[in-house]
């Protein structure tokens, strides 16, 4: 399995890598980030798009103004910036619970959508308000601009972060998060540092989302703007983890796979059934409706999403991605 993953770029077509696999990996990463916050720590957030945005714009600013900074380091610093921002917007979570938190995360979403458009400094004044890496992608001196490079860059980031997240979940911090999610009053009473742990959740989650955002902008899209990270993106990431399975690491991957592949499947289905007469708008709306129905269905039947469904069907073969 590991061999297949490493060799993938040589087996798959360029189209597949560019349009399916790379975005799938990045969405999984974003899903992982949000899942730590929402699935494990129980803090509902509609601000995933905002933190991705911060990461992307921070990377752009770093690459532009600190030219000697190598890309991997820039990504990490951008992630840290996103993490810090996440902590600030996570502060209300110490006072407010449940779905009131979405107001704070929505405020973050709208605030950054406004901020990055309003001040030309953020996008270096170009006329279309977009950001792109002028020097392209390079990792340790190697050119990562082609599909292979982007694949490995993304894969490396995703693999490393997944491993670190896995360690975190299995540790005291992970337990603290789940305690807070399940019953935060009791958690406080038995000595879990609730405030501290909540802020940690926001910080780590936003760090990961920031890196995902930067990768989305530069390893997938090439150039991005505020629109790439709007509220719809926040919804999308939340749906990924609901469908994939809240509170599991592999859930993010299943959800992202689903979200990446569904449009293709629908498109193919429509082409097949209606022989080519597909209105793009209609397709989008059908997709939307299907997503909605699936969300509701999963919440009713299987709150642990695809990861539970697939686990039941799995045989005794050892899982690659632990939960």
């Amino acid at each position, binding site marked *: 399995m590991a061999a297949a993953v490493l060799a993938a770029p040589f087996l798959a077509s360029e189209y597949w890598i560019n349009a399916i696999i790379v975005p799938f990996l990045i969405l999984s990463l974003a899903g992982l980030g949000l899942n730590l916050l929402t699935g494990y720590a129980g803090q509902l957030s509609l601000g995933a798009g905002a933190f991705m945005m911060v990461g992307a714009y921070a990377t752009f600013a770093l690459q532009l103004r600190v030219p000697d900074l190598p890309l991997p380091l820039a990504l990490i610093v951008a992630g840290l910036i996103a993490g810090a921002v996440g902590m600030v917007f996570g502060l209300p979570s110490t006072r407010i619970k449940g779905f009131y938190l979405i107001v704070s995360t929505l405020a973050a979403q709208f605030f950054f959508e406004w901020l990055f458009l309003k001040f030309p400094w953020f996008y270096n004044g170009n006329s279309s308000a977009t950001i792109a890496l002028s020097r392209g992608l390079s990792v340790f001196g190697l050119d990562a601009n082609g599909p292979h490079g982007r694949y490995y860059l993304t894969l490396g980031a995703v693999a490393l972060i997944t491993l*670190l997240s896995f*360690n*975190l979940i299995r*540790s*005291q*911090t992970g*337990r*603290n998060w*789940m*305690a807070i*999610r*399940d*019953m935060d*009053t*009791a*958690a*406080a*009473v*038995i*000595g*879990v*540092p*609730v405030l501290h742990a909540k802020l*940690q959740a926001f910080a*780590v989650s936003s760090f990961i989302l920031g890196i995902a955002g930067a990768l989305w902008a530069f390893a997938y899209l090439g150039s991005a703007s505020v629109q790439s990270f709007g509220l719809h993106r926040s919804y999308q990431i939340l749906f990924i983890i609901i469908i994939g399975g809240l*509170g599991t690491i592999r859930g993010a991957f299943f959800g992202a796979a689903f979200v990446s592949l569904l449009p293709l499947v629908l498109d193919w289905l429509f082409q097949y059934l209606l022989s080519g007469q597909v209105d793009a708008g209609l397709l989008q709306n059908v997709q939307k409706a299907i997503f909605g129905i699936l969300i509701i269905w999963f919440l009713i039947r299987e709150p642990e999403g695809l990861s539970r469904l697939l686990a039941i069907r799995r045989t005794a073969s050892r899982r690659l991605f632990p939960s």
Partner: protein
Amino acid sequence: MGIHAAPALEVRNVSLSFKGVKAISDLSFRVEGKEICALIGPNGAGKSSLLNIINGVYVPDSGEIVFEGEHFQRMRPGDAARRGIGRGFQNNALFSGMSVIDNVIAGLSRHSKVALVEEMFRLPRARREESDFRERAHAVLHLFDLEKHANTPVGMLPYGVQKKVEMARAIVAEPRLLLLDEPLAGMNAGEKQEIAAVIQRLNAELKLTVVLIEHDVGIVLKLAHHVVVLDYGRKLADGPPEAIRDNKDVIAAYIGSDHAEVAV
């Protein structure tokens, strides 16, 4: 049980009301160090609310709590834990998404000295602390005969077993005062004896002060050193078990309630 030593816990003139209904009225009593004090009384007598006040979950309208010589008008839940007050809840406030052992290890959370980054990279110090905590949790599980359930998600276990897990979680951090809310509920006679024996051992060996709420008056009279009877948020009687058993007011209060399990 010396009345000369400073009490471990003192409740002074505590009052609490919800939406105009007085849950606790001007309640005062003392708990001596290393004793087992039982709070009994009909349902709705304000007993759980009192525990919640000591733990910092509720804020009393008036009065104060004195714990180990320090006065508190309001306690924060985190502080209560830090000061060594452990708690078992009536409705099993267990973390339903986690396994038995993870629930118990969660009880050690406040003793963790390891930073986030160390955990992420599984640095040696983090690994050591994790295995140390795991060992301590296993020891406590053993005490309650829960080892076989260690990796079971807590939500799948019967109520009586869950209660044991909750108690295990409450004592793993070695508290000095343990508050238990109906620790024997949902158990059969044999299990009750077993747990009562564990509580006795904890009290004797670890010198743990215990305040517990319990409805099985028979067991309480045998287990506790000191009994406080509450009725409608007011103290009805306060003294050693023998005195309580013969107290006419207490008997009257119980005949009026439907939860009397007096096995004399």
